[in-house]
Each structure stands twice: as C-alpha cells, then as structure tokens.
C-alpha cells in the first residue's frame, strides 16, 4: 500500500472524510500490476483479430468475419480467469496486509472501501472488454459489409462475455478472503470454471446473461455483508 498517499490523506482530510476518489486512487496504485495483466489479454486477442480480418479482405465480405467469432471462446476463458484471479488477489492482499484494518482507523467506512475496490474491478474488466469491442466495430466500419450483418449475434456474445467477466470478478472477491493467496486464486478460478460451464451449456444468449447477472448480484451482496461484518 502506498503509505505516503494515506499520510497525505490523513493530513489533508484531517477533519473530513477521505474522498472516494482518493480510495480509488489508492486501489489503483496498489493494483497497477493487475491492471497491466488485464491489458495484456485484449492486446493479444486484438492482434489476432486484426491479422485474421486483414487476411480475409480478399474474400466476399458477407457476414461476420470468421475470426471475430472463433476468438470469442478463447477470449472468454482468458478474461474470466484473469478477472477471477484479480478479484481474489485484491481481496487476499487486503486480508494479508490488513489494508482495511488500517483504512478503518481513518475517516472512512468499510462500505466505501468496498465500493472503491469494486470500482477498480469494473475498470479492470472494462480494460479487458472495451478495446476488443471497439476494434471489432472499427474493423467492421473500415471493411464495411454490403449486406446487413447479424449484429444481434455479436451483441449477444459480447453481452454474455461482459456478464461472465463481472461474475468471475465477483466470485474472486467472494473467495479471496483466505489465508493463502494461492488457495484463494485457485478457488476463485475453480468456481469461475463452473460458471463458464453455464455459458457452455446455454450458449451466448439471454438465458446465460440472466443467470450470470443474478449470480453476480448474489455474490456481491454476500461479499458486501461479509466484508462489513468481518472482524478485522
């Protein structure tokens, strides 16, 4: 943890609450390595997609480029495990280094600490998610299809992938409060695998999204209650 920032917080906000932005900033600096890891996943996937689309330019441009569809599963698997691992590592760091214990003596609440942590998680997921979506949209604009595309398929797929990332991150947070960091990450990844199987059974679609969203809500609320009532 960056103690210097906290000391500055302590002096600057001596009589006031620590602002949410400061908490998020602290989370960001503490977990910069995780964010970099999260950035590697879309970077690899985007490279593969661009290469595949450029190779397919000579063929009749109807429908979604094959590579954009083929890459969905590898992307889902990599992203989901990274998200679960990040969530677990984030929570485990807190447990090991007693970050929340220290922050609780300052003018803030556990709820705000948890929200700041979740905001960072959402940022992490967006870092993994948004660049690929933007790349696909830009590629489909540059190499425009003369016949309307079945965009519904891509929208469904990306919505399911986003829901899976968020859900796996929530699971990571939930199982992360363990003594061993390795066990926390492994447990998070194992539970994520069970959720990925839900997508494997149902496919990319509304049914998967509903299950994943409900699971995310349930997991986050459970973690919230646990985090707020846990003896530090």
């Amino acid at each position, binding site marked *: 943890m960056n103690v210097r920032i906290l000391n500055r917080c302590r002096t600057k906000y001596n009589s006031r609450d620590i602002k949410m932005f400061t908490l998020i900033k602290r989370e960001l600096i503490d977990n910069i390595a995780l964010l970099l890891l999260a950035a590697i996943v879309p970077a690899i996937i985007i490279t593969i997609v661009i290469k595949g689309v450029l190779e397919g330019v*000579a063929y*009749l*441009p*109807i*429908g*979604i480029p*094959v590579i954009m*569809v*083929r890459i*969905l*599963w590898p992307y889902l698997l990599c992203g989901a495990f990274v998200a679960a691992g990040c969530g677990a590592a984030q929570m485990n760091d807190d447990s090991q280094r007693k970050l929340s214990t220290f922050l609780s003596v300052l003018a803030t609440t556990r709820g705000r600490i948890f929200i700041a942590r979740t905001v960072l998680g959402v940022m992490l997921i967006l870092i993994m998610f948004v660049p690929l979506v933007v790349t696909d949209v830009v590629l489909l604009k540059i190499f425009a299809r*003369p*016949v*309307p*595309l*079945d965009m519904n*398929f891509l929208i469904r*797929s990306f919505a399911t992938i986003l829901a899976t990332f968020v859900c796996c991150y929530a699971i990571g947070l939930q199982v992360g409060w363990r003594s061993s960091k390795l066990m926390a990450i492994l447990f998070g990844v194992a*539970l994520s695998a*069970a*959720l990925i*199987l*839900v*997508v*494997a*059974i*149902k*496919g*990319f*679609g509304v049914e*998967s999204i509903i*299950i994943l969203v*409900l*699971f995310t*809500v*349930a*997991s986050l*609320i*459970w973690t919230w*209650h*646990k985090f*707020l*009532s846990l003896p530090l």
Partner: protein
Amino acid sequence: MNSQKGYVINVVFAGFMAVVVLSTVLFFGRFLCLQTLLDLMPSDMALVRKSPSGLLGDWDMWPKESVTDSNAVASPSSIVIQADDDIMANLGFLEAFDPDNRSEQLVSPDIYGFSEEYEGWRHMFYFDKALGLLVSCDIGREGLDDKGRWTGKWIKKINWYAGPRGISQKPGGIGRFGDFLVFRNVWLPYIVVFDRDTSQFVRIDFEKKEVQTGPKIEPNIVQIGRLIKNDRAMMGPILTPPQRKITKYKTRPNGKVVEYARYESILQKVSFITGTGSELVLDNSGTIYKLNLETLELEERIGALPWPGVRGSLAYEVKPISIQGSYAGLIAGGIGPDIFRPGFLVFDEDGNPIREERGDVELSRFGGGPGLWVANFVLETLHAPILQLAAYFTSLMFDGADGPRSLFILPNSLVGRKGAYCSREGLVEYILGLWVILPSLAISVLLAWRVEKDARKVGISSKAKCWWAFTTVAFGLAAYITYRLTRPQLALVTCANCGCPRRPDMERCHRCGSRWLVPELIPPLWRVIEKSRLDETRDFSPDQPNHEDSEQITKK
C-alpha cells in the same frame, strides 16, 4: 446493521449460488453418464432400420423382379435413422466455438441465397430489416491488378426491392414485410414468402417483376421447403435404394483371371424432391402439407412428424421421395424428447402412413447399461424436488431441442418424461404419476432431518428451524449445502443451568431458556456423575430441564 436481516440476505443469495453451481455439476454428471451410455451401446441398438422401405413400389425389390442374371443378389431398399452419438452437439457453446457448423450465423440469417461467382460478381437475395423488404442485388469488385486479381473495393448494385405489394427499383410504395418465412430454390426463378401477419403466401418473381399473393390459409406455417430441425442431433433418415451385387471377372497382366463384385443401384431413378410445381410446408402441429407453387394454395395433407408438434421433437428431418420425377411419398424421421428414441414414419403419395418404426433401448443388453442408467437417475434425483415438480407439470411446454440444455427444470429427465406421458392419460394417472418424485423427496426429507438436528444443536430459533426444514424439503441438496455454508459459526459455551452447550450471543439458553446469571442458592439442574452410577440416576435428564424452576429463579 440488522443481523437477522443480514442473515436472511446471506442465506437467499448463498442459496441461489448453491443452486446454480450444484445444477451445473449435476448437469455434467448426467452428461457423462449419457455420453458413456451412447458410447457403450451396440451400434445396432442405436439405429432404427426398416427394409424394404415401401416407398419405391416395384423397385423396392428391384433385382428379384427385373433381373434374370443368376449373379444378382437381392438387397431391398431400406430406411435408417440414428441419433448422433455425440450429445455435446446439443450444447450451446458450439454456436461460437465451431462456426463452420453454424454457417448461417456467420453469413447472416437474412441472406436467402447467393449465386456462384461470375467474373468477380455474385447475385444475392437478402432481407433488409430496416426497410422490411427483400432486396435483389449484385456484389462484386471493380478493378484488376497486373496479375488479374481484383483489387478494388467491394461494391453493391441493387437491382430490385420486393414487398408484399410489388417490385420496384426504389424502396417506397410496395409495402413492408413483418414476420415472414422465405422459401428459395436456386433452380426456380422466384422466391416464395409466407407472410405470417396476413397468413398468405407471396410469390416474388424478380425476372418478370411480378408479385403474386395467394389465398389466406388456416394452418400456422413454421417451415417451407427443407423441413429440418437441429440436424446435428441425428443422422438420417437415409433411404438406401435396392442394390444388386454383380460378379464380374477381369484378367490381370500376368494372365490370371480374378473375380470382383460390383454393386448397382437405382439411385439415379430416386430423387429427394416433391416433384415439379410443389413444395413441402410444415405447420405448428407437425402436419406436413404440399404447397402448390403456382396457385399458392395448400394441397392435401401428405404426412406428419413422428412426434406430435414441432416443439415436441429434439430433432427432425423430412425427406420427400420421387421416382423418375414423380412424387412417391415421404419419410419423416426424428428424435423425440428422449435422445434414445429415434424413429420415422413413411407416408405414400396420398399421405397414408405405410411404415412406422421407433427405437427402443434395452439397457440390459450391454455391459454398464443398467448401472449408468441408475447413476443418471440418482443424479436427477439430487435435483431440487420443487424443480422436479415443475418439470413434471411443464415438460410439454418446453421445446424438445431445449431439453439437453436445461439446467434447472429438466423436461428430459425421467420425471419430466413421466409427466408428459401421464398428462395424456387422464387426471387420475397424472396425479398418481407423481410417485416418480418420491426418491428425491425422500432424500430431501432425510437432509431436512439432518438440518433440523444440527439447527437444534447450534441454537437456531424454532421459527428459523421451520423455515430451514421447509426449504430443505423443497430444494433438497442445494438447501443443505446453503445451510452448511451459512450456519452460525459460534463456539458454544456450557450453560450454567442445564449444562448443555449454549450460544454465547443469545440472552437465554436455547435449550433450557435460562438467563446467563443463575442464583447460587438454587442448585443447577445438572450433575457430574461417575459412569458406574449412571443407571441409578437415569431419571435425571439434563436434556429435559425444568423450565418452571428456571422461570421462578429468574423472577426471584
């Protein structure tokens, strides 16, 4: 925070997570059982076969009837259908993981055909959702490089727009299609559209620039032309025409004469079309009609699917048969909700059923069959009884193709199939058929008893105990797992009054009801005694404390 409220929230959400994770694990357990069962099953049991087909008339026994060659060996025609032994093909993940099998997703469900490339151009029909019109266009590239490769941009030349009221080079004034089905045959110069909003067939001829509308029809049409559903789940129906084996001789370079066999069939005389000027259509009830492409009227009923309704089948395919260009009948093959029961119906040219064959798996005929079936049943039994009850009453509402993907309510389970069967037998049978849920209910009651026993030990209030018992009976193993995850994790202390373990976070002992402070003058209800004297003091039971005494002590 209100701890009671927090506990309830925890239980509800932990319960939901337990249901999802448990259902997923059980799904893959059942998946493994069924897949192993299919792998172990002898190949003759997995397929349904009928010979002769009955469709080819005199040709069915062709070599016997028409050949005088003494070498000919009769092999009559036959029909075969088989469920695909890879049930993974029914899972949703293939949609994106194996896009080659789902080419319509890659191309677009709105493209109804495109021609072969000719000088860099392709002709194409597609539906423009924004306009609500069918579009006929040419797509190609302009510009060639030195090596003769097309280098320019892809361009589209729109030829015509077609709507329900006409054809035009501009999109306005020709109406809009809403919900519709399209039939397109590359050999025909026109497209036939069934407009579901008006229940009429519309024929669009782009060459003659004509739009012809047929009369209103009653049946709710769901498919035109190729009648097929979830074809990845099965192989067939395959019609094998009769063959004869002809023994021939040839001389090798060394002068030796060798014998070899050659097979001849009448395949060239059999084609899988309805004949000229008509096409198959399927309505929602599973009835197959012939559509006259000239008048756009439905002709007579010519067949039906082997299982009632379009939604009732896991998969189906209908194959019309023509001999030398004239319609001879059709084969309607499919798999019911049960993956182990492929079957087919054969209809003659007048729509009369002439053959019916349905598969039946005898599990005792192969090693491991009964064991795997029992394992599958046990895994189904571990599902929540309330979800099994839902499957019993709602299995007919599910699409047959959704069964293999079901996670929570299992229409393809034994309970679901029993419910579907009993619903057709009458109300009494429908109610009596509920016995299939009893094993699951028995497990749930056992788990509820375990929960109640543990809850008493932990000191959960009687109201909460009731809720837990009720929930465990309803949700079975999932509720039990939830209980284990959310039960209070407290170190119990010895009660000063009754001597039994009591919760430190409650004001009164959950066993004897006494408060924390017990006046010293009143002797406690418990004693430490030697084991040898246990029989003498059998009437003294610390588990049955005198509550009245406790109350009096408190009042004093």
